[in-house]
Structure formats: structure tokens, C-alpha cells
């Protein structure tokens, strides 16, 4: 077997000899500095330069693996809260120390730009700067920008002219569709090294991972058509394909990491509708004009707040809707909101509240305010500066942060340890995403999670059917979507809605759900190989 040796030592020697001769001490120092900057065996050289950073074992391993075995091009797909940014920072720092990387482009959702800037500067001493509109791209050594800004003209053209040493894309699952402008733009960026960060490399279909791999290692999986055919073949071929994907992906699961996570306590808090509210709620079922699924959506809305329900009704201009709105107006303050407000007061600590509805967000803020609690809201519609201001207020002044799922993506809120799920999401994966905001790398205290549940409503049904059953999965929840997509069940969220709305009794729904979980479980072991890092 052969090894290829590349060297031009003789000709390079002529160049060196043209320099002025140095003294003995400088010669020795130059040698020692080079030694310090090179890998000592398998260890990272950058750690010597980052005395204050104490990465967890899985983070170090991930960085080593990407550097030594994946040549700096990889998908970092750890579960939420395991510190993908730390891994990316370590890799970047290592390559910068070795002089292999100077010019860097970091693409992140606009809400996370500041966070990236801070972490790179404070933890890694990497001079990352957020891209300012009036400065040229060429002036930045390490630029942080949103894809939305970067893909606009004239930015796109300027970026595509640059030769980057390193490209980092955060929340890279946004690139799963190869037809989108975002994807095509990112694929065209020239970069020697490339890291894609996502906690959910596959959300629905395996194609998605194909598209991500196409960016980090073009051609690795061959043509898409062939790739899909291979996947349909025997388990052995499938296994080979998975192994191939693993050569460019690092994925750590929370349960596999060895460090001591702080504990996670989960508690359910029950509220009870007032009689008037219960009557309104029950009447949703009786209105025959509505489709089962619409009824379910309406019920969920009403379990959240009158305002959320109102917004759904307001879309229709029918006489029926107008009547219902008038009925809504007569109802007292929402029982769950009042219950929650009391709970927050008792708790006496900062907490984060998640809701699925923007209307509820504002209502809750009002309710809390009425009782002397300062709450700030946060959602995906806010501008970057407003988002940052809200987070700052939450950290320094406010008692409560009320946020939606879309808004909170990728945020680090480990300074807070309490989280209230005012509405339970259909998709348990979302729940994991939410909890990951506080139960993550850097959290020093035990984390408290609270579900707010209205008795005798769809809230309770979801809790009983979905969450209690899923606890049996012991942490597989995060992969459930992937498991289901593997066996041809489309979107988990849709599947759940269908089961709940079409079952005539709770027992029926329960049985259907059991079946679904059974099927998923039997595929779990196959799935596992995929997620293992080695």
C-alpha cells in the first residue's frame, strides 16, 4: 500500500535562507511555539489557549472527531442544549491557531446573531462581528449575519465572490429543502471548512439529510435517485448508507453524554374552568356546522385564552361566529390564566412561559401586570433589536418571559430554571426544544418544568394520551418523528390530530396511539445505529 508524500523542502529552503539570521533564543522560541500549536497526539492544541473554557467530554470528542476524521466539514447534530456552539467554537479556534482559517462567515437566525458574537468573543477570543449594513463584507475577518440579509442583493453577490476559509450555518435544518433560495445560496458559498449545526437533522424525510450532506461533502451520497433506491434495499445496504452518513455527522444524545446534568423535575398544575367557561367549551362540540378537526383546534384555542379563540372565530364572517364572539365577551377572566398567575406569584422566581398563541401572549402579559408581575413578551415577529432588548429586560428586570416556540429557537436562557408550558404542543419534540432553552450546557441548578392543564378538556386528553404514554419511550421522544417517517407515517403532528379528532372515545384514541407507538418502538433499534456517533 502506498502513501503519498508532498514536499518542496529544498526549494522552500532557498527562500528561508534569504531571511536575516536570528539569535539562538528566538530560534528556540519559534520551535516551541510551533510545537505548542500543533496537535499533541490526538489532543486539541486550542485548549492550552483557552484556560477558562471547560468543555464537556462529548464536546471535546466531537471537536476532535470533526478535526481529525472529518477534515473540518461536518454536520453537528447534537440534541438541543448539549452545546453545539461550543463544539463549533473549539473547531474554529483550533483551525485558527494552526493558521488554517482566517476568513469566516457565520450564518445564524437574526435572533441569535448577538449570542454568536458574544460567545465567540468571550469564550474563544475569536473576533466575530455582526455584519453592519454600511461596511463591506471584505472587511470582516469573522462575520456573523442572518441568511435573510446575506442572500439579498448586493450582499449575495459580494459573499459569493469571497473565498472563505470556514462557513458555519446555525439552525441548518432550515436548509433541508434543496429547492429553496436559502439552500441554493449556501451551497454556492466557497469555503474550505464547513460546519452545519442542527438539533434535528431529519425532521420528516431522509432526503433532508441527503441535502445537508450535499453541502458538507458534495457527492458523498451519490445521486439522489440512487440514494433513495439504495435505502429501499436490504438492511445491509441501509446500514452501509447510515455508516456513510455518519462519516460526516456527529450526533450526541443527552442520555449518552456522561456528565452530570442537573435534575429535571416535572409537575402538572391543574386548573378548572368556571361553569360559564365549561358550558362554552362543551358547546363547541355541539355545533354541527364544524368539522371535527376545526372543533379540536377551536377547543385548544379556548383552553388557552378567550383571545386565542376570538381570533379563530374572527376569521369567519358568519352569523354563527358573530354570535359566538358575543358569548365569549360575556365570559369571566380565563381560569387557567388566573391559576397560572397565582402559581407564578407563589413560585417567587423568574420563569419562562410558553404558549402557542400570540393572542394568549398579550393576554397573559396583561393578567400578570394586573397583579404586579412584570412580564415581557418575545416572538418571531419582533425585530432583532427588540428581541435583544426583551431578553435583556428578562435577565435584569422582568419576572416572566412569555414566548412562542418560533421565537425561542436556539436561545440560551440557562440563567432561569423554571418553565411553564401554558399550552402543550402536539409534537413532543417541540417540548424537548423548549426545555432545552434552560436545561442545557451551563445550567447549574435543578430545572423545574410545569404543565398547565385544564381539567376535563382537550388539555388533559393530550397530557394523558400523549405525554404519559411517551414517557415509556425513555428519551426516544426526540427521535419519534424520525422513526415515524422511516416507517412511512407522515407528520407526527398531523397523525396525532387525526387520532384525537376522529376517535369517538378516549379509549379508541388510546388504542390507536398504542398501536402507533408499538410500531415505532419496533423500529427503534434500527434507528439507533443512525444516531450513534461512531
Amino acid at each position, binding site marked *: 500500500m502506498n502513501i503519498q*508524500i508532498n514536499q518542496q523542502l529544498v526549494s522552500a*529552503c532557498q527562500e528561508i535562507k534569504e531571511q536575516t*539570521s*536570528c539569535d539562538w533564543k*528566538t530560534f528556540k522560541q519559534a*520551535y516551541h511555539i510551533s510545537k505548542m500549536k500543533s496537535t499533541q497526539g490526538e489532543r486539541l492544541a486550542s485548549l492550552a489557549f483557552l484556560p477558562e473554557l471547560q468543555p464537556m467530554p462529548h464536546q471535546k470528542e466531537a471537536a476532535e472527531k470533526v478535526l481529525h476524521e472529518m477534515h473540518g466539514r461536518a454536520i453537528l447534530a447534537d440534541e438541543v442544549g448539549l452545546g453545539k456552539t461550543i463544539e463549533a467554537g473549539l473547531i474554529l479556534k483550533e483551525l485558527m491557531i494552526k493558521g488554517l482559517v482566517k476568513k469566516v462567515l457565520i450564518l445564524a437566525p437574526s435572533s441569535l446573531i448577538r449570542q454568536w458574537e458574544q460567545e465567540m468573543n468571550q469564550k474563544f*477570543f475569536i473576533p466575530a462581528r455582526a455584519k453592519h449594513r454600511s461596511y463591506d463584507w471584505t472587511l470582516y475577518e469573522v462575520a456573523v449575519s442572518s441568511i435573510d440579509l446575506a442572500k439579498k442583493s448586493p450582499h449575495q453577490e459580494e459573499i459569493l465572490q469571497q473565498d472563505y476559509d470556514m462557513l458555519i450555518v446555525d439552525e441548518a435544518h432550515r436548509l433541508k429543502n434543496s429547492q429553496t433560495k436559502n439552500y441554493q445560496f449556501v451551497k454556492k458559498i466557497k469555503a474550505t471548512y464547513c460546519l452545519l449545526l442542527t438539533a434535528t437533522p431529519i425532521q420528516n424525510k431522509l432526503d433532508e439529510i441527503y441535502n445537508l450532506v450535499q453541502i458538507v461533502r458534495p457527492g458523498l451520497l*451519490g*445521486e439522489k435517485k440512487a440514494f433513495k433506491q*439504495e435505502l429501499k434495499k436490504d438492511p445491509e445496504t441501509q446500514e452501509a448508507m447510515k455508516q456513510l452518513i455518519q462519516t460526516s455527522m456527529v450526533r450526541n444524545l443527552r442520555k449518552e453524554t456522561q456528565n452530570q446534568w442537573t435534575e429535571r423535575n416535572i409537575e402538572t398544575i391543574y386548573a378548572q374552568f368556571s361553569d360559564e367557561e365549561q358550558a362554552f367549551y362543551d358547546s363547541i362540540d355541539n355545533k354541527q356546522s364544524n368539522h371535527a378537526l376545526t372543533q379540536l383546534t377551536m377547543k385548544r384555542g379556548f383552553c388557552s385564552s378567550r383571545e386565542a379563540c376570538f381570533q379563530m372565530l374572527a376569521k369567519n364572517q358568519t352569523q354563527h361566529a358573530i354570535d359566538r364572539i358575543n358569548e365569549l365577551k360575556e365570559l369571566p377572566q380565563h381560569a387557567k390564566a388566573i391559576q397560572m398567575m397565582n402559581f407564578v406569584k407563589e413560585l417567587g422566581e423568574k420563569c419562562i412561559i410558553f404558549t402557542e398563541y400570540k393572542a394568549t401572549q398579550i393576554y397573559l402579559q396583561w393578567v400578570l401586570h394586573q397583579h404586579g408581575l412584570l412580564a415581557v413578551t418575545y416572538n418571531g415577529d419582533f425585530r432583532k433589536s427588540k428581541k435583544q432588548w426583551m431578553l435583556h429586560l428578562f435577565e435584569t428586570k422582568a419576572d416572566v418571559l412569555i414566548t412562542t416556540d418560533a421565537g425561542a429557537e436556539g436561545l440560551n436562557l440557562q440563567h432561569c430554571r423554571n418553565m411553564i408550558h401554558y399550552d402543550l404542543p402536539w409534537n413532543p419534540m417541540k417540548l424537548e426544544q423548549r426545555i432545552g432553552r434552560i436545561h442545557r450546557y451551563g445550567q447549574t441548578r435543578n430545572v423545574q418544568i410545569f404543565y398547565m392543564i385544564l381539567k376535563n378538556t382537550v388539555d388533559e386528553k393530550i397530557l394523558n394520551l400523549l405525554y404519559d404514554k411517551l414517557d415509556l419511550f425513555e428519551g426516544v421522544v426526540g427521535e419519534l418523528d424520525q422513526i415515524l417517517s422511516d416507517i412511512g407515517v407522515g407528520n407526527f403532528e398531523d397523525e396525532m390530530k387525526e387520532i384525537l379528532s376522529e376517535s369517538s372515545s378516549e379509549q379508541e384514541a388510546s388504542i390507536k396511539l398504542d398501536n402507533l407507538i408499538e410500531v415505532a418502538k419496533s423500529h427503534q433499534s434500527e434507528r439507533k445505529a443512525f444516531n450513534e456517533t461512531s
Partner: protein
Amino acid sequence: MKQADIQSFLIDFFTSRQASIVEKSDGILTVKLTEQLDEQLMNRPFYWQYVKKLGKVGETMSVTFITDEEKRDQQKGEWIHFGSPRLDQIFHIIQREGAYTVLYEDCQSNSTTKTPLHPWLICNIRVKYRGFLSKDELVSVGIRLIDGTMRFQMMDEIEHKNFASSVPNFCFTLPTIISTERAVERVTEELQQRIKQKSTHFVNKSHRLYEREMNMLKKLIIDDEKDDAEHQRAKVQIFERLYPQVDLEWINLGYFYVSEQMSKELIS
């Protein structure tokens, strides 16, 4: 080097480059730079361009470096530590300046008979492995330019010896017999031989993975002629990544003239 050693390292760096130490206390160091250091470190090319155009003498900057973390907030100055860009800048200056040397053993002979010094070439080389994994290794090889005798781990051996930049009194240098080019060639050949011998596992594993990915690629190409460029790219990519390769690069090199005694020690 630890954080506590940084201050003495800085003092050494600046004084040996003729900068003056303005103030020095525990963890705090103020230095008045020389023009050359100012240009190298302070990144203000417009100022220097302007001053030189006007034919004036520029005013160099004074910089305060804080090495004790507890004093960071007490005093104005730069917090300097491992990983700080400033220290890295300084490292780069040393690496650049330290690329080449000609040195003589500092033998304090007071005999009237002249001492001959034997010529050695020291090659410090970075060996970068690329294949199923990438890693680097530093090698230090000395070769005697009289007969081509080689010695590895050269730097470790001479680390604590003294060398001067000019020929000491009562010493003279022996002429070289082997040319520099030939010496470097021989060092390279020997190095290649050693790399091949010790990396069979690395080579085998890399080859195996390389073949596996190539085969997988062949399987995946349905219509080989459709997009040949794309497939070629994929093949090149796999080759670059997995085919076992080694890059050899200079760290620095130097001519060392040593006494017969040291020359013998180095060979034994």
C-alpha cells in the same frame, strides 16, 4: 508556558527588541514600543505612512499589558493571556523572525591554539498526516555537513547549550562538504523512509476507507455519463480526504557550528 510566565516572556520579548520598560509591577507591565514594534503590533499604517511622507519622526505608543487576572478591573490596559490576539501576534513575529539562523557554539577556549567548529544543519519540520484522520508531528533532524551523519530529536539535545551569533574568539569554521540542497534531500529521504515504516496501520486503514467510499460512489452512480464533472469532483474529494498523504513543511532551519566534542556527542 503558563499564565504566570507571560509577564517575564513579554519583558524578554520587548527588551530584546530594544523597547523600553516604563513600568513594571506584579501582573502589570507598561512598554514604550520601538517604531518597528509599533508598526508590527499596533495596526496603524496610515499614521506611519503620513509621518514618513512628511519626513518626521513618529511618536511610538506605550502599551500596558495586564497579566494578573485580578488586576483587570483596577487598571487601564490590555488583558493578555493565551488565546488573546495580542499574544498570538507576538507569537507570529517570533515564528517569522525565528525561521532561519546561523549560530556558533559558545566555547570559552582561552588556549592559543585555534578550535575548529564542525558545520551542522538543523532541520525542524512539521509532518502533517492526512487520511482517515489528520494529525501533525514535529521532527527535528540534524545533519553533519561533513559526512552526512544524521541525528533525530536534535532540538531536545541542544536545548540547554549556549550558542552565539558570531564566531567566538580563537575559533574557526570547517568548510562544508555536503551542499545544503543535498543535505535537505537526504534528510527528506530518511524522513520519508521512517514515515512509511511506522505508518502501516494509518495507511492500511485509510486505504480501506478510501476503497469503501469509492465503491459506494460507483454503486451510486446510475448514469455514469450524465454528469461526469460532478462525479470527477466527488472522486477528487474522496481522494483528498481519505487517500493517505503526508505534507512536509518547514518550521525553521539553521546552520550550527559546534566543537568537535559536541559533534561527537551528537553522533553517539
